[in-house]
């Protein structure tokens, strides 16, 4: 696929990048190895590149991660809701991550002082989360409308799985929250049961869900969520908190 010329991909009136120039394959195979730079360890992540407004000079760390962020709608909403929190989207598709990058840069230009706390990286989150985040670094992780991978033999490509939850539990601080939502019932059941059966996660109560302003964004903030809403599709969410396992060495 030839690279699209970046200049021509901006909408002249809004200055925002045009999505159609960044269309890519709908689904990607997270098992195939593509070539993109991977930080050797979390201390190698170049914060001044992602957050030049804060770095150098700040000791902040990324606290929110939107896994498979797609076109970045959630990040854009969270950026102004939590202006002091650094957050990053992780996206496997090159063009899509490029789009999000351009989107953030134009928002920064159009709204001076804002959107300085969001960024995006192109990576395979299923392989490289430990390269980006230290133990207990994150307070929120988002998995919104992940690819369903219906076939049984492709279940291990799912971004929520019993094994991957071990890694998410590692990067989440105790009390940190994992948010998942999907319009595919089977996947919703799967994500919920993975979380339910994991010794280091517990469900938020109805009350807690209501009190959390982020929960409302799950179905409305992302491009995928809006598409589902337009089609009046049903959604299935599972929101869980990282806990200390009852028996530390259970």
């Amino acid at each position: 696929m030839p690279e699209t010329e970046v200049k021509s991909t901006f909408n002249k009136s809004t200055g925002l990048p045009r999505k159609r120039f960044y269309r890519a394959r709908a689904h990607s195979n997270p098992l195939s190895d593509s070539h993109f730079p991977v930080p050797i360890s979390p201390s190698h992540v170049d914060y001044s590149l992602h957050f030049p407004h804060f770095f150098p000079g700040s000791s902040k760390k990324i606290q929110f991660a939107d896994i498979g962020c797609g076109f970045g709608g959630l990040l854009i909403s969270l950026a102004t809701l939590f202006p002091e929190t650094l957050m990053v989207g992780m996206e496997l598709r090159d063009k899509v991550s490029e789009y999000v990058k351009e989107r953030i840069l134009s928002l920064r230009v159009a709204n001076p002082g804002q959107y300085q706390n969001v960024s995006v990286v192109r990576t395979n989150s299923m392989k490289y989360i430990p390269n980006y985040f230290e133990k207990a670094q994150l307070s929120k992780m988002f998995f919104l409308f992940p690819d369903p991978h219906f076939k049984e033999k492709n279940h291990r490509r799912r971004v929520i799985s019993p094994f991957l939850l071990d890694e998410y539990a590692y990067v989440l601080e105790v009390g940190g929250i994992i948010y998942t939502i999907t319009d595919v019932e089977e996947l919703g059941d799967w994500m919920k049961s993975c979380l339910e059966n994991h010794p280091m996660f517990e469900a938020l109560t109805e009350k807690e869900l209501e009190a959390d302003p982020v929960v409302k964004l799950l179905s409305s903030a992302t491009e995928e969520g809006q598409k589902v809403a337009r089609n009046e599709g049903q959604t299935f969410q599972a929101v869980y908190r990282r806990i200390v396992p009852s028996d530390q060495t259970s």
Partner: protein
Amino acid sequence: MEEVDSESNNKDGVSEVAPALIAVHPLRSSVAVALGSDLRVFDLLAGCAVSLVVDDSVSGAAFHKDSIRAIRFGANGKLFVSAGDDKTLNIWSPLSSSSWRCISTVSSEKRISAVAISNDGSYVCFADKFGVVWVVDISGFDTNQPLLDKRPTPLLSHYCSIITSLEFSPDDRFILSADRDFKIRVTNFPKKPLNGAHEIQSFCLGHTEFVSCLAFFQAQKYPQRLLSGSGDSTVRLWVISSGALLDTCEVATKAGLLEANGSGKAEDHGHAVTDLCTTLDGLLVAVAIQSLQGIVLLSHNVSAHTLTLAKVVSIEGEAFVPTCLGYSPSARELWMITGVSGLPGSSHPSFARIRVISGIDVEQDAVVLGDDKIPGGEKLLETLQGTASVDENAFVAAAEAVKTAMCNLLIKKQYSSENRESRKKTRNDRKLKQ
């Protein structure tokens, strides 16, 4: 898909080549060698070959049918395990000097790439080609009784990366797994491992190429310290509880194999660290490096947390580049093997050569023993090498093949984009769709 490549690519011959492995009994009563699907054992006390017994009392037991990828003794020497490409793990009871019995056979869904036995002898873990580590409860086994139907349960997983090395920490609190994606994962080994090991303690991150080997200092004094070797030509020293990197030793540079400016590095992996072995006192570390005819000894300064070059022990006269190391603490001997099996198109499809260095100690001088001085003598060489004297021509040919084999084993296949596309078209799952 990466892991499918590693399975299907065997057709092209290269990755099917298996390096020779060696393991020395912790009390030095025997030495075991794996070459291809062949397991060979010599009893040093009795001075004779050990016969391996597989009988009907163990359901499904059989000799290995494909390359053995991992062998090891349990900490007290009462167990020995072998596993590999035939998707089986055999547990042997090495009690008698004349014969070892296979007391259990565990089947895996995928090929096995690494094994570990907990130091208390209760659990065997193995890693499969999909990056999943499985655990088998072997507690309370009796050496004379076959273990009943042992089924593995999944313990943890590295997402689609091949696990190259698996180790228990000396105190059994952690299980460590190293992979081809430069990672070392330290996981709390739970009291009830059959429910999975969910609590990750740390990741040791710093290597810039595949991690090929892990080693602990057996001395109880440093249960927290880990050594690792890598395709990036370094040996690193870590604290496992935090994943902190204490020191990096550029072994290939130190041994004079690489220019200090790093030229000629990485690309060809010609100086990858292939194996590591620590001595009982934790002060010396033996390192095998691709292209080095001999080994490097590093000294571990315990209080300064450093690794420095002690000496290079060269092996004169033949192109002996070790593929695997084993250490006998009681005799202070380092056992080395070089060799491969399954060489495509070679007149010597399999080949193994053993050398021993004695006097691995701080005070003594290390000596490479001649074949006439080797413990067990000609009989041992005949048993473990398959022949007492190795043909010089075979040696030179094999040395080159060993190098290629080791690299292919450890390096992820890099496809050009063209190649990638054509592979996609011929992929089985795509074909089915049409």
